[in-house]
């Protein structure tokens, strides 16, 4: 089995797909899924499970898949991960489960992500997640934010019987899954479907509710919510801090992606929230969001899209698959290139001036530190999209007395994920800073456990 090569997922042709927003990876057929699952050697101590932030029982769901017990296979995943169709698509598997797969040492790891996606989609189609409404125990719990952390937290608490309400600031549910991740990577129907599952479970959803403004944490307690989970994510864009950042045509990735994903901007068809985009686009940053922005720009018709990244190739934090897909789609990677000034004409962006870098000794992140070389290049551009990270939104912190935060804005929690306010818990990007969907989900799920213990103690 070790020698058998990986079963590749079919993909939309790279030249075709840059003209549409349809999903790039097309998934496995049952036959392909079985073929790939057979590669698993069923280790006695599966390292993949330990490397998964929510400990999905990976060899077990694969075994069930091979035994044609697909329903059971789905339920096995669903016990630990309520969003398998999403995680199968967006998790950085190479640094988690697949990175730990023993086959990876001599050959290629099992395509765990693709298999999770297959089983997740099967379950979604068959409506397997819909297991009815658990009876309510009458205890009200509030969840702030409907992104991955909030959804996972709400699902876990609802299953334990709590009367859960999710408050979302935007007009649609899903947080970053809706406004951030583009359709070609995560079709929005999948997110909507997962949210409908939670509604079927009896989770209540309130949109257009900005906690801290529309309702404060104190007002939620006054409204008889017994505990609150904050999963409001990291939605505030980080600034590059170079001259020219406020010129017209300079976008933060959040604005660019929100226009396209949440507000459905398209350049080729009429949209009420349009997007203005020229031919030559620079994207600053090397993470998943930067890849999403670059590939979105290409799909909107930009001719030349290039990534500016101050480190080398091995320093790119994006998922490998996204980097490959971006390259196939003609995105140009200008590595070891650090933007130092955005130059405009009549207040509209025209050029970006960059300094070339070289690699020095490893820094605190373990990656080799980029060092200036004193050599510069200037590139002509029509737009530049800054995508160098996000921080937690300050609204909640600014409007909640006694909520302690880090200097960079992250909410401080104790070992039980409780914040400085008794009964208020937090998890996901709002605590860790921008990370991954699965880590946020894991934090939401773990917090549900701590909230349950807290509430049980409180009831006594």
């Amino acid at each position, binding site marked *: 089995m070790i020698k058998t090569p990986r079963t590749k997922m079919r993909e939309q042709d790279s030249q075709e797909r840059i003209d549409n927003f349809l999903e790039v990876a097309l998934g496995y057929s049952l036959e392909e899924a079985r073929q790939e699952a057979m590669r698993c050697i069923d280790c006695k101590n599966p390292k993949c499970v330990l490397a998964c932030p929510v400990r999905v029982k990976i060899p077990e769901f694969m075994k069930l898949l091979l035994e044609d017990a697909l329903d059971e296979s789905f339920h096995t995943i669903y016990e630990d991960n309520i969003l398998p169709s999403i995680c199968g698509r967006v998790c950085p598997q190479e640094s988690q489960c697949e990175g730990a797969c023993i086959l990876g040492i001599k050959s290629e790891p099992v395509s765990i992500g693709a298999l999770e996606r297959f089983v997740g989609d099967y379950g979604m189609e068959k409506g397997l997640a819909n297991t009815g409404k658990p009876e309510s125990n009458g205890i009200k719990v509030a969840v702030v934010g409907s992104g991955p952390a909030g959804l996972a937290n709400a699902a876990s608490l609802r299953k334990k019987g709590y009367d859960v309400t999710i408050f979302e600031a935007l007009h649609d549910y899903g947080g970053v899954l809706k406004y951030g991740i583009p359709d070609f990577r995560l079709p929005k129907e999948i997110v909507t479907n997962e949210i409908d599952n939670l509604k079927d479970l009896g989770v209540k959803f309130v949109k257009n509710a*900005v906690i801290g403004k529309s309702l404060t944490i104190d007002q939620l307690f006054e409204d008889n919510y017994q505990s609150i989970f904050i999963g409001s994510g990291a939605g505030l864009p980080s600034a590059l801090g170079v001259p020219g950042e406020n010129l017209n045509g300079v976008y933060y990735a959040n604005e660019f992606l*929100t226009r396209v994903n*949440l507000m459905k901007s398209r350049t080729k068809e009429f949209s009420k929230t349009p997007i203005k985009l020229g031919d030559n686009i620079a994207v600053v940053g090397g993470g998943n969001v930067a890849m999403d922005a670059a590939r979105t720009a290409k799909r909107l018709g930009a001719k030349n899209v290039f990534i500016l990244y101050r480190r080398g190739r091995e320093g790119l934090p994006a998922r490998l698959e996204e980097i490959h897909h971006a390259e196939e789609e003609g995105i140009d990677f200008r590595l070891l290139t650090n933007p130092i000034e955005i130059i405009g004409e009549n207040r509209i962006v025209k050029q970006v001036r960059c300094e070339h870098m070289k690699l020095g000794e490893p820094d605190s992140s373990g990656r080799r530190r980029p060092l200036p070389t004193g050599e510069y290049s200037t590139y002509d551009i029509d737009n530049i999209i800054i995508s160098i990270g996000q921080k937690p939104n300050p609204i909640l912190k600014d409007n909640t007395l006694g909520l302690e935060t880090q200097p960079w804005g992250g909410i401080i929690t104790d070992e039980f994920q409780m914040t400085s306010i008794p009964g208020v818990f937090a998890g996901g990007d709002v605590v860790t800073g921008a990370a991954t969907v699965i880590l946020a989900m894991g934090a939401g799920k773990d917090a549900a456990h701590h909230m349950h213990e807290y509430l049980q103690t409180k009831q006594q």
Partner: protein
Amino acid sequence: MYKITKKKVLNEAVDLMHIEAPLVAKNAQPGHFVIVRVDKDGERIPLTIAGMDGDQVHIIYQKLGYSTQLLGEKQEGDFVEDFVGPLGKAAHIRDKKHVVGVAGGVGSAPLLPQLKAYAEQGTKVTLILGGRNKDYIILRDQYAPFCENIIITTDDGSLGQKGLVTDALKPLLEKDKSIDHVIAIGPVIMMKFVTLMAKEHEKTIDVSLNPIMIDGTGMCGNCRVSIGGDTYFACIDGPDFPGEEVDFDELMSRQNYYKDQEHDCYMRLKR
């Protein structure tokens, strides 16, 4: 869905609406704004709150573009898709002796609760209302109970004195030395020149900025403004800022970046 409980046409271009929105009304204060989405797939538009009572939030809007025009087609009893707030920081009501409020056009709406708050804390208030013509002078009667001195200016002289708000502000600042603060809300160009005049007379000034916004909650960064050389987000740090420190020219240029697209969108509605 949020119900329009009252609609009043103030002039050919400006309407007043009361919207039933308990979650906005609960904590709303002068200076806050809302984001409205008229229908599904609609644009998110920011509007300053003009007042509130009970569960009702009052908005006043000028039918300038696609979405405000669409909103204007809604009638009493109809619904808007989304209505979220209160957003932004509440206006900072300063400890001042005599405040002059200067409003241009629909700027009269957000100024009203602010100037009223000043009057209620015992500050003497004077008002200058400016507009293109007499139809664009709105809410004068609502100011009257707490503001004795109201000066009207119109571009065509159809009401009050002919000229700009600054023509009325200048003599006021020159002769009344008790004035120690100015608030200006209206078109950016107006706020810019009122600020220059206030600075010249060494008065502090607050302005309310209206850059392009999408989410209105600190997420997109489109509404960034330069204040005293630093970048702020108008949606979470504002919309009110000390006028002396605002880069008005940058704001005007950023407001115009999407002008062609806005026009295209608007023309589709007209067809």
